[in-house]
C-alpha cells in the first residue's frame, strides 16, 4: 500500500459510509440513539476534505490525519474509537509504502487502541467483534498479498458483524437495554465491516 492507495481506501470508506448512512442509523436506532450513520458521514466527509489538501509522504500520514480528523469531527463513542484506531495505525506506518505484513501490524495497533480506550472485549457487541476476526483473517492471508488479505478480512468482518446479532451488549449505549439488546446487529461492528470492505474494494481496483 502506498499513500495513493491509502487515500483511495479512505475515500472508499467515505463513499460507503455516505451510501450506508441510513442503514447504520437504523441499526443504531434499534439499540442506540440513531446517530451512528450521521456521525460517520460527518466524520469521513471532513476527512476527505482534509485529505484534499494533505501532502502525505507516508501511508501513516494519511491514516493519522484520518484519525485526528475523526476525533475532531465525530464525537460520540465511534469518534474517539475510530479516531484513535486510525491514529495508532498511522503511527505504525511511518514509511512511504506498507507491506501487507506491516498493514497487519497496523491493524493490530488499531484494535489495541480501541480496546485501550473503550475497554471492550470480544463478545461485548462492539466494533471489537468485527475488527478482531478481520485482523486474524488479514494476518493469516497477509502472505498472499494485499488483495487476498483484504478480501479475507472483509469476509471475516462481515461475519463478525452478523455474529453480533444474538449477543447482549456489555459496552456502549446498547448495554443499557440489557437483554433487549439481543437480536440486533451492532452498528459499530457493521461500520467496521464497511471499512474492511472498502479496503478490499480499493485493493481490487488498484
Amino acid at each position, binding site marked *: 500500500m502506498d499513500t495513493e492507495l491509502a487515500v483511495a481506501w479512505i475515500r472508499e470508506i467515505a463513499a460507503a459510509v455516505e451510501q450506508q448512512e441510513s442503514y447504520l*442509523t*437504523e441499526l443504531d*436506532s*434499534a*439499540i*442506540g*440513539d*440513531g*446517530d451512528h*450513520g*450521521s*456521525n460517520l458521514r*460527518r466524520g469521513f466527509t471532513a476527512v476527505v476534505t482534509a485529505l484534499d489538501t494533505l501532502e502525505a509522504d507516508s501511508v501513516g500520514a494519511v491514516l493519522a490525519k484520518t484519525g485526528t480528523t475523526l*476525533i*475532531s*469531527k*465525530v*464525537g*460520540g*463513542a*465511534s*469518534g*474517539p*474509537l475510530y479516531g484513535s484506531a486510525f491514529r495508532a495505525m498511522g503511527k505504525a506506518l511511518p514509511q512511504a509504502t506498507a507491506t501487507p505484513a506491516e498493514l497487519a501490524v497496523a491493524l493490530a495497533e488499531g484494535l489495541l487502541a480501541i480496546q485501550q*480506550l*473503550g475497554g471492550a472485549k470480544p463478545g461485548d457487541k462492539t466494533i471489537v467483534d468485527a475488527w478482531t476476526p478481520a485482523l486474524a483473517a488479514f494476518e493469516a492471508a497477509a502472505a498472499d498479498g494485499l488483495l487476498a488479505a483484504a478480501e479475507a478480512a472483509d469476509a471475516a468482518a462481515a461475519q463478525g458483524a452478523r455474529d453480533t446479532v444474538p449477543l447482549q451488549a*456489555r*459496552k*456502549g*449505549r446498547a*448495554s*443499557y*437495554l*440489557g437483554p*433487549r439488546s439481543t437480536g440486533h446487529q451492532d452498528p459499530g461492528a457493521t461500520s467496521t465491516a464497511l471499512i474492511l470492505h472498502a479496503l478490499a474494494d480499493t485493493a481490487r481496483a488498484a
Partner: protein
Amino acid sequence: MKKLINSPETVLTDALTGFAAAHPELAVDIPNRVITRAVRPSGPKVALISGGGSGHEPLHGGFVGPGMLDAACPGEVFTSPVPDQMLTAVRAVHSGAGVVLIVKNYTGDVMNFQLAAELAAEEGVEIRTVLVNDDVAVEDSTWTAGRRGTGATVMVEKIAGALAERGAALDEVAELGRRVNAASRSFAVALTAATVPAAGKPGFDLPEDEIEVGVGIHGEPGRRRERHRPAAQLAAEVVDTILADHELTVGDEVIALVNGLGGTPLLELYVVYGEVRARLAERGIHIARNLVGNYVTSLDMAGFSLTLTKADGELLELWDAPVATPALTWS
C-alpha cells in the same frame, strides 16, 4: 418527521445562532461550539465546564452563568462533543485555579472528555473530572457501560457551581460535585419516542397503551415495556424504584427534580410532582427543594424523570445560592 429546523445537518449551528442572539449575557463561539459567560468572573476561580450531545436543552448551555457553569460544549444531537470543543472551552475559561469537567457517564462523553483532559493537562491546566451516573435503570456492573448520567447533572452543576463561585479550591469543588452525584438517583418513564432529526423517524414504536420504563435521554428504548398507568401509580413506582437504590430513611430531606423529557406539558409534570411528593411523604421523606419543568430533555419525547438528591444543610445552602443562567435563575 416534522420539526422546526432547516435541515438535520445545520440544526446545531442554527440553534446556536438563535441561542447566541437570545442571550447576549453569554458568549457563543458558534464555529467552535463553545458557550461561555460574556463577562468572566473577576480574579481566579475554579472553572466548571460541561457538555454533551444536543437535544437535551436547556442542558448544558442553559446552565452557563454566574453561580453555575463557566462553559458548555454542545455536541451534535445526541452525540457527545469532540475534544477540540472542550479544549477550546478550557482555554477560554481557565483562570489559573483549575478546571472541573462535569461529564455524564456515556461511553462517548467519557472518551471525548478524557481525550480533552489529556490535551488540556499537556498545556499545564489542572483538570478534575466529575462523572455523573445517577440513572438507577441501569445496573452499575461490568455487564454494562455503567449507570447513565441524567437529571443529577443539574444538581451537580448547580451545587458545585455555587461552591466554585465562592472561591473554593479545585479539589473541593470536584469533591463536592462527586458527593452530589453520589447522593443522587434518577429514573425515567417515556410515553413516546424521540425523533432524532438525522434519523427522521421515532427511535421506537410504542402502542397507544404502552410505555417504556427505565429510559435514558437519548431516545433509546427503556429496560421494559409496560402498560400505561395512572400518574399516581407511575409516580409511586418511580419513587419506590429510586428508594430501593438510595440510602434514604425516615426524616431525610431531598432536593427533587420532576423533569419533563421535552414533549410533556407542564400541567402533567405538576400532576406527577404532587404524586411524587405524596409517595415520599408516605415514606417519611421530605422534599426540601424542588424543580418541576423541562431541564434535561430528550428532544420531543413525552414522559418524565425523577431525580432525588439527598440533601444536608451544606447542599441546601449551596442550592439556594444565587444563580443567573438562561434556565435557572434566583437570587
